[in-house]
């Protein structure tokens, strides 16, 4: 699993990448009440807006950690947005992307680097 400085995580399996927000981000946001997911088929570029996650008091843009094309959005989040708070780094995933560049993926922080990064905040 890799991480961005903007608190997204991405897990590459073959050339399909699963993307979500980190436990730190979920905690900072508070109770998630709504998630606006990208449309299947949409092409996203790294660091561009991909989704929006809303809590009661805040709406945060979620950026694509890597470039790719959306093949699936997590339908569970439509009825149960609280899943993001419960299991942000597994069941609370946002989208799956295909056509992801392995080099782009490996350039991102690993968990140890991300946790060091969190300490600087």
């Amino acid at each position, binding site marked *: 699993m890799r991480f961005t400085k*903007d608190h997204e995580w991405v897990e590459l399996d073959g050339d399909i990448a699963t993307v979500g927000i980190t436990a730190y981000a979920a905690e900072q946001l508070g109770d998630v009440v709504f998630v606006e997911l990208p449309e299947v088929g949409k092409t996203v570029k790294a660091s561009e807006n991909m989704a929006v996650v809303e809590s009661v008091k805040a709406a945060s843009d979620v950026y694509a950690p890597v470039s790719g094309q959306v093949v699936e959005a997590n339908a569970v989040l439509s009825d149960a947005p609280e899943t993001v708070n419960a299991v942000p780094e597994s069941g609370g995933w946002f989208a799956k992307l295909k056509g992801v560049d392995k080099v782009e993926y490996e350039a991102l922080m690993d968990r140890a680097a991300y946790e060091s990064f969190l300490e600087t905040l």
Partner: protein
Amino acid sequence: MSLQSVGRPTQPQPAELGGAHRSLTGGRGLLQEEGLLFEVGGVDRTGVDLPEPEADASDLGDLVRSAPIGLAGLSEPEAVRHYVRLSQKNHAIDLALYPLGSCTMKHNPRLNEKAARLAGFADLHPMQPTSTTQGALQLMDRLAHWLKTLTGMPAVALSPKAGAHGELCGLLAIKAAHEANGQGARRRVLTPTSAHGTNPATAAFVGYDVSEIAQTEDGRVDLADLAAKLGPDVAAIMVTNPNTCGLFERDILEIARLTHAAGAYFYCDGANFNAIVGRVRPGDLGVDAMHINLHKTFSTPHGGGGPGAGPVVFSAALAPFAPAPWVVSDGEGLRLEEEAVGAAVQAFGRLCAFHGQMGMFVRAYAYMLSHGADGLRQVAEDAVLNANYIKARLSGVMTAAFPNGPCMHEALFDDAWLEGTGVTTLDFAKAMIDEGFHPMTMYFPLVVHGAMLIEPTETESKRELDRFCAALLALAQAAKAGDVARFKAAPYLAPARRLDETLAARKPRLTWRQESAGVAPAPLAAE
């Protein structure tokens, strides 16, 4: 992600009921419980007596609405009880202070209400021939004169219906001016990081990209950053002065000079005009457009959320672009110019139907006549004095965000002083409710951590200010002494305990829906 770390609990913890006395049927003395209109009323009940119509609707055929509408009615005694009981659950200025920063919650004079209800104003149709509305036009003209004189600006648009609507008016005029001058390529608006949310929202609405100007250590616009960001692509800056940290922008003349030198316009958010009315003219500071909140500076009532009024004053450069309608004199009397014709052809178009919030104009004009030039100057002085008094009384215990130098009409604190207590700004605010005060503005401006922005206004007596300070100092002491329970589940004494905003947002329930005839739906259970 653009992580917004304002996540704070929006689901209350299960409440401790404490040792309070319980009645047998759940009643709470004077505080009466009252269900929803659709539970206490019925489709077969009414509180009006109307005669039989002299004709039927057979001429309308199948256009007649035959399906039930679903409206509950009440007799007059029931209706009066329904609304009086509901009113008991509201805080109000007439009850106690609202120390809300940038809201200017001053006393609403009752003379204003009496004046607005004179039949000559209240029972007047906007499209009557102007020969029958000369008094209304004269009042609008006089109000415009006062606003122009107080701000030192040559033109004013009266029609915007609220402050945000006024911001829209100002930016549309700026956009029109640039287009007329061949400068339509300017796509960017600059706002400070401390700006009120309506500023970037309005700029984006009008099609501009919004960039932020950094703030200095002492809470003002960073001139170097502003100079760096100004350029041929900038249409305008939107600055509040005094700013949302309650501080006067000392470099305001330089801010205006830099902006104009770069070919941009200076929009001023007039929300904080109460600090300087009668003492400083925005026109003298280089402002090109400023909206004035009549429901803030000029005392028109907040009414639980509105209506407001947001007339906009304009510099000579922007005056030609102000929207219709205007009051003009034509020798014989006054009339309304409702179309952008002739000399006014550059005006950008209508902002709303009819002429604006006449009811609020009458109230604001009554307020202006009552205070006069001397009274208005005293308003600003007392507003600033009251805020500085609070700052001085509380600064020993609470941490002022900008302790060096005076504040203007509002005092800003951060939450550094709460560190280690386990009590947040939110908890502190909720505990204020139990002491009888509406919380101050919280978590705004965004540039200060755990911000608490306190604006008392000039209509608070010293006795009320002392009562307020005593309550806050006592609460602060309790927080520092570790009395966390007082705060975490507060308020205890309000008509409602903390409400589950998470549930409201996850499962929105925005209307009453009848589950079955005559039966109210069960209240939602907390998840």
